[in-house]
């Protein structure tokens, strides 16, 4: 299929006796925003490591735009897929603009300075992420949320058809995490980027994704559009909430599902609640 960006077939990862991933298959088409959710230890990080080739001991096939992952050169891979790591660790010693320009690495010829086109891509990435005024600041002087935006901008400058994001809001306070979510919304809706987002924010996943993947104990429990998750108990099953299921509600404006933990509204009957 021409518009399939990423395709994963029967991916399994075993380390010793432990099965970290078991027969995972899914694909992502151009322009989609897909969220990957699941409890800790479900294998989300392992899956990302396979995609970024940090982990190479797996069975099954991963293809990017029809090309098998192991046959890609590192730079070719970077031109097809960019990824935004979890915001953690020390800030690299660069200024924002320098750091974003490093995102163009896979497009640059060795020993040749960045072209006007490279500069333009860096500019548009800075603009899209609202970082113009930060361009001369060093990363160490930025807040966690701003730093995350810089990472996203660098991945944008890479100009790859698919962007992976690993828990982009995990270490942020609510305001900064909302800013990042807004940015992702912009990227998907306006800039028409294809996104695979690993997240613990189930509501955002349900409200804004085209599809939600549920990963549990190394298996793909579901691969459904959010509206399909309103029926059945898959979400409850994913997080072992069968005894006290999530309360599911439909957002009236967006006609999208979201969930409320039952501990909030403990005594209300479970199931669908209209607002």
């Amino acid at each position: 299929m021409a518009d399939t960006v990423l395709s994963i077939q029967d991916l399994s990862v075993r380390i010793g006796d432990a099965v970290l991933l078991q027969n995972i298959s899914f694909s992502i088409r151009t322009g989609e925003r897909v969220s990957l959710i699941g409890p800790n230890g479900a294998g989300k990080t392992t899956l990302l490591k396979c995609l970024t080739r940090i982990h190479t001991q797996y069975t099954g096939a991963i293809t990017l735009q029809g090309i098998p992952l192991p046959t890609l050169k590192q730079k070719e891979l970077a031109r097809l897929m960019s990824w935004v790591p979890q915001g953690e660790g020390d800030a690299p010693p660069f200024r924002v603009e320098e750091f974003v320009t490093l995102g163009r690495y896979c497009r640059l010829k060795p020993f040749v300075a960045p072209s006007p086109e490279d500069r333009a891509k860096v500019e548009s990435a800075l603009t899209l992420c609202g970082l113009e005024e930060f361009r001369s600041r060093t990363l160490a002087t930025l807040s966690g949320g701003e730093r995350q935006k810089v990472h996203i901008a660098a991945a944008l400058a890479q100009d790859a058809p698919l962007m992976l994001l690993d828990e982009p809001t995990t270490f942020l306070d609510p305001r900064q995490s909302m800013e990042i979510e807004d940015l992702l919304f912009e990227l998907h809706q306006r800039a028409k980027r294809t996104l695979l987002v690993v997240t613990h924010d189930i509501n955002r996943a349900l409200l804004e994704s085209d599809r939600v993947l549920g990963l549990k104990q190394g298996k793909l429990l579901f691969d459904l559009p959010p509206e399909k998750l309103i029926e059945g108990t898959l979400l409850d099953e994913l997080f072992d909430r069968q005894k006290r299921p999530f309360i599911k509600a439909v957002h009236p404006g967006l006609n999208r599902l979201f969930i409320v933990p039952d501990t909030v509204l403990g005594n209300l009957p479970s199931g669908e609640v209209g607002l």
Partner: protein
Amino acid sequence: MNRKQKVIGVLSLLTVATLLTAPFLGMENIAFEALLHPPWDNARYLALQAEDGRFALETQILWTLRIPRVLVAFLAGSLLGLGGMAFQALFRNPLATPYTLGVASGASLGAAAYVSFGVVIGFMGIDGLPLAAFAGALLAMSFVYGITHVTAERRLPGATLLLAGVAMSFFFSSLILLIQYLSDFTNSFRILRWLMGGLEVVGFTQVWQLLPFALVGSALIFSLNREFDLLLTGESVAMGRGVRVDKVKKKVFLATSLMIGGVVAFCGPIGFVGMMAPHMCRLLLGPGHSYLAPATFLLGGIFLTWCDTLARTLISPAEMPVGVITALLGGPFFLWLLLGRTRGGLHVQ
């Protein structure tokens, strides 16, 4: 011209000034004119000697002792600086240099073994001594490589690598001591004197011998500027941007082994240049390696050339080992880096 280009410009001028003045300074200051009378042509030299014996001697000193020595000192400083810069970027740690991680000790062990066992071998016109030092450096480097794999796998902190380097230095040093102990008195003294670091260069042979190590090593390092920048953002991020991290590591290890092996063979294990030069350049220029690498090359060379000039003038007519001077300056600098989290970008993890 922006600020960074100005810094490179100033360093280039200083380099020219250094290379033009240092050879004339020493126990005997030599007149500039001596430069115009290289003593290669026997007839001309004899004529000059008949005319002015003292001046003829000066041309001899300048051309067979001072100029080669200054060239070797400059090259050695440049290579030590580049090696330090490469290690600091690779390990994201300003204290990680070939010297602190035991690579220089490995090279010393190779060289000491060669001196002591007295086997004379050569390869394609290159003396066996630098090759033995190169082999020793590679050996130490493979240990460093192994240790980085273990620290990465077990997610050990950056300090582990440094401590492992210290342990390795001790290990190699004790092997060197053993070799020294087993050697006869002459060799033992030669090894000891050479371990202090020094540049007793006579003639241009050593310059030509050092050159292939310098050219291949520094060309490799200069070709990796962008990769070094990306490595500073973290290995996995660098991979995501398209850097073949493992290949870069191997290139750096090979290049550094060549450079350090070459330098150690001819000048002994001179410490701290590899740590100071890149760090000072980083304070001036920031972390980007397209400017940092040439600046480090120049400053390392300038720095060691002047240290050596001091070494041969301070207590003249005697000479101090240059390693003593760099260590006297470098020790406090090391402490300053270790204790203060500096604003140069890199800091101890």
